[in-house]
């Protein structure tokens, strides 16, 4: 009987120390650096928190899109200038051929 009691007490002590160790380890995880925590664990979230908007990509699209618009307008100006030159050349030819 004494042996059983001794074994039971030993088991309870090991269990208690184990639980205490686990709890203190969890506290340590909660207190550690969030960046390190992100690197070590994956946690599921739902709702609005689930979405992360990539700011860098949006910035690249904004600046890239703006330059596309600017270059498109410059190309249009170039075309208008070329059309003027063509019409002027045709006009000169026409006037020269009709000159008295």
């Amino acid at each position, binding site marked *: 009987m004494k042996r059983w009691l001794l074994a039971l007490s030993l088991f309870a002590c090991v269990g208690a120390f184990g639980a205490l160790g686990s709890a203190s380890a969890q506290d340590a995880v909660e207190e550690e650096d969030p960046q390190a925590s992100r690197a070590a664990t994956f946690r599921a979230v739902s709702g*609005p928190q689930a*979405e992360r908007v990539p*700011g860098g990509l949006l910035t690249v699209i904004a600046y890239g*899109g703006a330059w596309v*618009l600017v270059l498109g307008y410059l190309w249009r100006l170039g075309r208008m200038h070329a059309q003027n030159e063509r019409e002027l050349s045709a006009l000169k030819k026409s006037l020269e051929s*009709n000159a008295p």
Partner: protein
Amino acid sequence: MALAPSSTPSTASRVSPLWHALAAITITLFLVSFYLVFEVAPVEEQMGLVQKIFYLHVPSAYGMYVGWTLSAVGGLLFLWKRSDRWDALSVAGAEVGTLFAAIVLLTGPLWGRKAWGVYWAWDPRITSTLLTAMIYGSFLALRSFGAAGQAEKRFAAALAIVGFPLLFLIKYSVQRWSGQHPVVLTGQGGGIHPDMVPALICFFLAVTGFAIWLLWTRIRIERHRQEIVAIELEAARRGLGGES
């Protein structure tokens, strides 16, 4: 009207050295601006990288105001003086203003996606900007129908004048009806970090140079176009077969 070669646009097509100098200064200012925006200016605490859209968005809005204001001034003076010179200013202003408005309406929603979670909000300032862009868009649609006659020019000038009061609506809508649009640079806002100021000022200067250069170029092209049309009409009137 004389049809001598000296009166044709070919002589006017010589480009001023100042035009080249302005182009070079503008390109340099843009390069410096990009360096200041992406290397010197700090990343904003709340918004992160997407806040850097601000340096492009705000000066573009200023370019939009400048372009559309000049369009309205040109339209008003055209209706008063009936000179094609003012019509050219009105067309150039409308195009340049609409180009900058397109940049504003592109970059704003991209910023809003991060800040508000949606690309578009029917905020007073955003809505009034879209409405004004539609008016000046109508101006450009009207003028894109080919060689404009006097009636089209007058109607377009009236559109430019009608659009002008809406610029004040864009400016003061935030104060009058609040809304979600940021007011960082106005008296209501908290201002920007001192290290962000040089990038913003440099971008403003770059956009100013670019707007002037674009207006100059567009006015020049429009004036040439007007001169060609005038010579063609005169040649046709004299029966020289100038219509091409």
